[in-house]
């Protein structure tokens, strides 16, 4: 069914959870409960866990869990197919994010299938293109330096709160045209909404964020500027202005989609750097290869998953999926497919260029991918020029957050 983005209605698709809600067409031999994102084995070392799926599980299996039973894709080739064929694998209703049914909105553009999807991307793509984000380079560099100034001389920091979280939030506020004095408030909202694991805290955060965004949209409508909120608020593809619901769904999607992923990616990379000082030196020694270095780090430390709903019956690698089934591409596992990336856990800055799945592929490829690459690049350059070697604070155990964005909870560093 094609949706009308200007008039959102809650999807009526079924969501099955747990062992008592397994549709009868799922072959018994493909049912698993692997504890993805929540189990003890996953949380002990998430990326190792996802790499080992290639040895332990069939290439496509059906995971049963308390949240959402779904097919799981771990082969690079299968993820490319699923992500590139929206006629079989739809995004409508595929984003598992609770919303008020009486004030429903779509996350735009991720919940919109082609052909409507492109009109939204055309509004913001010029700003997020490689050339577009380059205009932000000086600003991002300054934000990184300002943060480093606060703690580089102290010999220690808790990375996630001192750098990993505030850097992407600052950059986000700059891009959106929102004031920097909202930084710590946005940080708190993001933490409450995405990591509190508490329904009441999440609901409260969502209400505060919604109210703030609605007010910001109203202000930008009255007084346009160069920021993304203003650009979306004034967009009129084919001469038709976006509805209030479209503008809101677009802006809030950028908030949710853009903040946590860069944060988690930085946290994962910095943990690895802290444990591998010789690789820090290698990065310092190869400034001309920084883009290849960033690409390989994004492959090795991808942080998220991509969900779809089967739109019409389809067979993939001999597995029959039925309309309405949910499908998750485990992107980090796809990046560890040994058929595409031999010795997949090895960080090798000289791998031949191939399609990585950190940002997915297909029409819904991450619009912030270029910005994320630039942020990781600048973070590496600025940090390593000030703090070339560092280690995890002795005696501190690293724990991972459960949930759909993978990374360490805290990262105490010393140098």
């Amino acid at each position, binding site marked *: 069914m094609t949706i009308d983005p200007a008039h959102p209605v809650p999807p009526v698709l079924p969501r099955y959870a747990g062992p008592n809600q397994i549709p009868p067409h799922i072959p018994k031999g493909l049912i698993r409960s692997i504890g993805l994102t929540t189990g003890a084995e996953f949380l002990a070392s998430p990326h190792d866990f996802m790499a080992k799926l290639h040895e332990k599980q069939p290439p496509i299996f059906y995971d049963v869990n308390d949240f959402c039973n779904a097919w799981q894709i771990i082969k690079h080739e299968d993820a*490319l*197919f699923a992500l*590139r064929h929206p006629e079989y694998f739809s995004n409508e209703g595929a984003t598992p994010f609770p919303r008020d049914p009486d004030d429903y909105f779509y996350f735009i553009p991720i919940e919109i299938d082609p052909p409507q999807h*492109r009109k939204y*991307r*055309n509004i913001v*793509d*010029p700003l*997020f*293109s*490689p*050339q577009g984000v380059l205009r932000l380079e000086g600003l991002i560099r300054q934000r990184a330096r300002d943060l480093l100034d606060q703690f580089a001389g102290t010999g220690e920091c808790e990375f996630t709160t001192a750098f990993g979280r505030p850097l992407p939030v600052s950059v986000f506020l700059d891009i959106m045209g929102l004031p920097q004095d909202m930084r710590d408030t946005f940080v708190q909202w993001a933490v409450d909404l995405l990591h509190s694991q508490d329904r009441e805290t999440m609901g409260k955060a969502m209400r505060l964020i919604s109210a703030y965004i609605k007010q910001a949209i109203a202000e930008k409508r009255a007084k346009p500027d160069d920021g993304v909120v203003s650009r979306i608020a004034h967009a009129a593809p084919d001469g038709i202005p976006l509805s209030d619901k479209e503008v809101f769904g677009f802006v809030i999607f950028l908030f949710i989609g853009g903040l946590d992923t860069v944060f988690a990616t930085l946290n994962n990379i910095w943990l690895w750097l802290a444990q591998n000082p010789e690789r820090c030196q290698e990065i310092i020694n190869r400034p001309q290869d920084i*883009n*290849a270095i960033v*690409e390989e780090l994004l492959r090795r430390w991808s942080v998220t998953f991509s969900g779809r709903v089967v739109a019409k019956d389809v067979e993939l690698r001999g597995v029959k999926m039925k309309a309405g089934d949910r499908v998750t591409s485990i992107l980090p596992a796809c990046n560890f497919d040994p058929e595409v990336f031999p010795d997949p856990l090895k960080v090798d800055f000289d791998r*031949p*260029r*191939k*399609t*990585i799945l950190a*940002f997915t*592929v*297909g*029409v819904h*490829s991450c*619009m912030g*991918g*270029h910005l994320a*690459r630039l942020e990781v690049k600048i973070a590496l350059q600025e940090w390593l020029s000030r703090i070339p070697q560092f280690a995890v604070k002795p005696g501190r155990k690293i724990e991972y957050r459960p949930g759909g964005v993978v990374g360490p909870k805290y990262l105490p560093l010393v140098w």
Partner: protein
Amino acid sequence: MPKVTYIEHGGASHEAEIAVGENVMRGALYNNVPGIAGECGGALSCATCRCFVDDAWVARVGGPATHEERELLEAAASLDTDEGPARRNVRLSCQISMTDDLDGLVVRLPAKQYA
């Protein structure tokens, strides 16, 4: 603004104006030209914006600009085995930046950008 003509695999032709400094992949997306996916947006990650530069323009456009572009084109070459002799001038259109010198550029598009 300089113009580019995109010729789809089936022969349909589309002319689009592209601002100087913008690339040939974006020009297709902004003007709804079918046959170019441009999934990764120019990050040298996907090779879904391949085009075959018309013989008359090869000298001005030049060959692959970086080793990343070359590696991606090699990895995608099996998709284009039926494309005939035009295949020799394959480029990633995201890596062709528009200049006034390229006004009138003609590129052909492959039958498919991915399997």
